[in-house]
């Protein structure tokens, strides 16, 4: 009769799935890293979906991650490094195809 309590102005009981801003913040970085267990991940996600207070911090951490990940260089090793590795391996008996 949760709907009736709300209708009558009573406080809605806290659902077991709901977490506080503090709890969401404590798990925020693990959440963004995809390192939380499924239930915990869903709890944080449900909180962040609706919490205006947590929204700016979430956006801040996301913007930071985007800029760091964007700086990744798919930079290949210079050819002389690759040649040196193959040469040294060749001396060890490795034959490349």
């Amino acid at each position, binding site marked *: 009769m949760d709907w009736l309590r709300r209708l009558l102005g009573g406080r809605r009981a806290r659902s077991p799935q709901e977490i506080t801003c503090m709890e969401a913040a404590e798990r925020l970085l693990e959440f963004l890293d995809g390192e939380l267990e499924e239930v915990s991940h869903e709890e944080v996600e449900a909180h962040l979906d609706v919490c205006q207070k947590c929204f700016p911090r979430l956006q801040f951490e996301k913007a930071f991650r985007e800029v*760091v990940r964007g700086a990744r260089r798919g930079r290949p090793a210079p050819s002389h490094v690759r040649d040196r590795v193959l040469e040294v391996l060749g001396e060890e008996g490795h034959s490349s195809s």
Partner: protein
Amino acid sequence: MTESSADFEAEALPHLDAVYSFALRLSNSEEAAADLVQDTFLRAYRSWDQYTPGTRCKSWLFTICRNVFLRSRERDRRRDEILAESAEPDPRALSRENPVFMETRERDPEGSFFRSIVDDRVLQALDELPKEFRMAVVLSDLEDLSYEEVAQVLDVPIGTVKSRLFRGRQLLQKALVDYAVQEGYLPAPPGDEES
């Protein structure tokens, strides 16, 4: 070509570029990175029978690369270990409040200024982080390793990975905030306009 050589070529050599990128971020020097890559693959080849097929070869190569690097910097390692051991805060407490966000939220609540920062500047700030923090951030954010894989590479508990990663990111955020203020992407804090 022997079976062992063929396996090594198929599983290890494709990660040469990733190991080079990691070595470059560790050493901040192209010459040192080239030496590191060479030593890493030489040791990996000699120890290939110790590699467990099916496990993540990239993590194994990073572990070797990290060990070769640290051995070449023995004196620094002692200093860094003392630094790391002296302060290892609770990761969740680090996640709870971010002082860099608190300091900038009045000026740019959602961190939009980050998007104005060019890649070279991000990498420069990353290279200036203390080594233990830099390794955690590079392995997690640039190489996409899980906490567990980073823990294996760095030979530390997962809690230490989280602490170093969260602290490293905060230091990096602080450096990028300073740069953004200097370049005018973010207003200076109130009272600092003259400086």
